[in-house]
């Protein structure tokens, strides 16, 4: 099982992150200075790390503006592993991952499965997609929970993990 994270290259605008930041300011929370967003994919199945690299490079990331990390993981730690290199800044305070709850239709994953086949990798795989947010700034746990529940995750269909 592999976990792929897509990161924005240095110097490019992380526009989804900026949207989230403006939403956070919009609900009256001042202390967050920067938000970075990364899409996450977990690929499960009889698949090699070389093939996963190909999927990340050719399918899931934009070579010009994005880079990616691929980490091997097990069933238990897949949703939890921290990135080997935190992106860009070291004033970062917390990381939030958001995943669909079991049974909720994940349409992007369906498209990934189909596209992987089109890439010529014919092994049977399963894909889960998630979202990762790097929040920079000093905030309390209560405020953080508020941000997550009000803006980042809909707990009806998604679950989240805070680092």
């Amino acid at each position: 099982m592999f976990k792929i994270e897509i990161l924005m290259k240095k110097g490019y605008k992380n526009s989804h992150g900026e949207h989230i930041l403006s939403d956070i300011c919009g609900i009256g929370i001042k202390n967050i200075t920067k938000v970075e967003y990364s899409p996450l994919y977990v690929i499960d199945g009889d698949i090699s790390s070389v093939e996963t690299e190909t999927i990340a490079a050719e399918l899931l990331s934009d070579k010009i503006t994005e880079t990616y990390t691929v980490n091997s993981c097990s069933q238990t730690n897949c949703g939890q592993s921290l990135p080997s290199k935190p992106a860009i800044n070291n004033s970062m305070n917390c990381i939030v991952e958001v995943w669909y709850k079991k049974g909720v239709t994940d349409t992007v994953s369906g498209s990934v499965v189909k596209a992987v086949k089109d890439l010529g990798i014919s092994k049977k795989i399963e894909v889960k997609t998630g979202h990762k947010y790097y929040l920079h700034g000093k905030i309390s746990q209560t405020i953080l929970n508020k941000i997550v529940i009000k803006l980042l995750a809909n707990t009806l269909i998604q679950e989240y993990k805070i680092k």
Partner: protein
Amino acid sequence: MKSAVNCKIIEILNLSDNQLIKLSRNNVLSLSIEEMREIQKYFEKLKINPTDIEIETIAQAWSEHCKHKTLTGIIEYTEYADVQTKRTYNNLLKETIFKATVELNKKWCLSVFKDNAGVIEFDSKNGVAFKVETHNHPSALEPYGGSATGIGGAIRDILGVGLGAKPLANTDVFCFGDPNTKAYKIPEGMHHPKRIAKSVVSGVRDYGNRMGIPTVNGAVYFDDGYMANPLVYCGTMGIIPKNKIEKKVNSEDLILVVGGRTGRDGIHGATFSSIQLDQESDVSAVQIGNPIIEKKVLDAMLKARDLNLYRAVTDCGAGGLSSAVGELGEKTGVVVYLDKVPLKYSGLSPWEIWISEAQERMVFVVPPKNKNRIVEIFEKENVEAVFIGKFTRDKKLTLKYNNDVIASMDMEFLHNGVPKPTRYAVYKIKEEKLQKPVKMSVGEISKALKALLSDLNICSKEWIIRQYDHEVQGQTVVKPLQGNNIGISGPGDAAVIFPYTVIKGTKKGIVLSNGLNPQYGKINTYKMAASVIEESLRNAAAVGADIEKVAVLDNFCWGNPNKPEILGSLVRAANACYDMSKAFDIPFISGKDSLNNEYSIGGKKYSIPPALLISAVGVIEDVSKTVTMPLKNKDNKIFLIGITRNELGGSVFAKINNIKDGVVPDVYPKESKDIMKKIYRAINKNLIESCHDCSEGGFAVAVSEMAFAAGKGVVINTDAVKTEDVSMSPAEILFSESNGRFIVEVKHKNEFKFQEIFKGAVFAEVGYVGDNENIVFESKKNKIKVKENAENLLKIWQSTLNW
């Protein structure tokens, strides 16, 4: 015979009334005690207990969402005015809205109130199909998924009308709570209105844009009454060959299910939409959309349609397969093998497969001889297509799972067995008093004008509109925002689609517009309904539509119909629909109602302010004649057509200035229809340069919009405005929201011909297009002169909703 393959027998025969109610509640069936008793009686006759899937099927077929029990049930209505009047409706819908359509009997209405959408004639070979639906409850819980599947469903309605229409444009109308509400005021478990608004817009954007269908017309209305229960109306218009409008189902035809796989998504959506929202609303009622699958279905099915490979099609909406297959097989009977339905994952019980509202699924009726060819076409587009059963002759619904019969019921009972409820409705007509004369200084009028332009319900919706692709397919000729360039624009009255890529060589266009005003409904639902019907027509007329060729759709969103006052206000609105339809000679061709828009906070129940959305669709003979709203050239004359009455009741001006009294704008069909017809004639003779209707905010707002959309100035003499009551103050003239009024710009050389056409109507020359950027309102009589800069007003209009 009834073996238990994941299928339970439900004890119903020996239950008491209390136990029946409990059974209905515990299984989210949303069935009343009368209905439960009827079901009990049916199975008593058979001397057998039903299976879970049989009970679920009945609950779906009898749900408010599928059967519209309130509007088609018996209503005992009492009205209190000077005298008390009583009336019994055996079927409100048939005795008001539908009745008007039948009486008008328009030959150009090709399909009304019977299919997934209404169809009117476009030209000798084609029809235009239009449908608007609501998706309120799912959008309250998961705004993104809810609104995305809302537009997805509206598109599928168009694919499922007749043998399928090709979608050309989408419309969307939303009602949200105040986005500036402080976070702590939001009840536990509900999303903030701003989050709902943003996510709903993203949902419609992502689905519509990915389908390659432009979103061209809409409206957004903010009111605190929609805080925990937003309204999401989605509509789609499409074009359909006239010879593809009729469906047919023969015995022995096969049932083909096409598109998405079935999962646990949206179980109990139909019955769920019939109950009220609270904190513990059902999780599995959430649906997630996948536009990519729907796009593939669209492409493949139109190919199959043109090869005549199927006899009927419908979409899986509320109630899933149970509703879609049940309706198609109503006259013949049907047998379905549920184990053949393709699933997203294993572990679903047969009843879950049968009623799941998983998205992007269509059901086709295929003659056996075309079996292989049709599947080939879908496979080529990578669309899953699987035969799951066939139509029979026994007039029974038979469901099988691994060859075991798990349900067997009479179609007659399923479709016509629902007992007619009797509901009570009352309405007290409130007397509307004229407000105290509104005297305002120059400064106060300036301030009011700016406050109006920046009001949430008048301000620019550009932030939303620009997220939608309103240009894809390249046929949008009159656009939602109109003006000099991307930064300088005003709100268009209606959208016009020129379907030249679908119908080669045509000169005709299709106009789409809408009317919505819940604020009026808080005071008088009759006037609200009349006003929004008139507004939708006025919007269409303003771009150059011939209202003799316009049809309308109704969408009622109301609170709990078990409360007599709420149902009474609905009866009044439905009566207004009948009266206006007859008076304007405008048929209703389709409609939908969403009742039970009620939510509870801390144990207290709140109903939404009643909202009637009227969506108009019409055919324009020559698209090259259409006009837009920005002013065109300096020195051109400005005319205000129609009478300005002292009607500030329910107006945005009254809300802002906290004016409690006031008369809600009424509709004068004879006067207003005559004006619309004259506008059409003048536009067709190229006598009108620009045209805009007066609605929320009144004359001053409408003139300002025309000016700043063009980066031009305008000089208006308010003394020249024709009023009913000579004592109206300048502020009342400027901000009254009287219906039936248009502002038009006319060249000097066309003035004579223009006046000729408008002989007999009330109109006046009220000003001219200025040569600088000043917007001026002057009353010499009252010694008042308001002067504002166009660019400044534009900025005010644009800055409110700029997230």
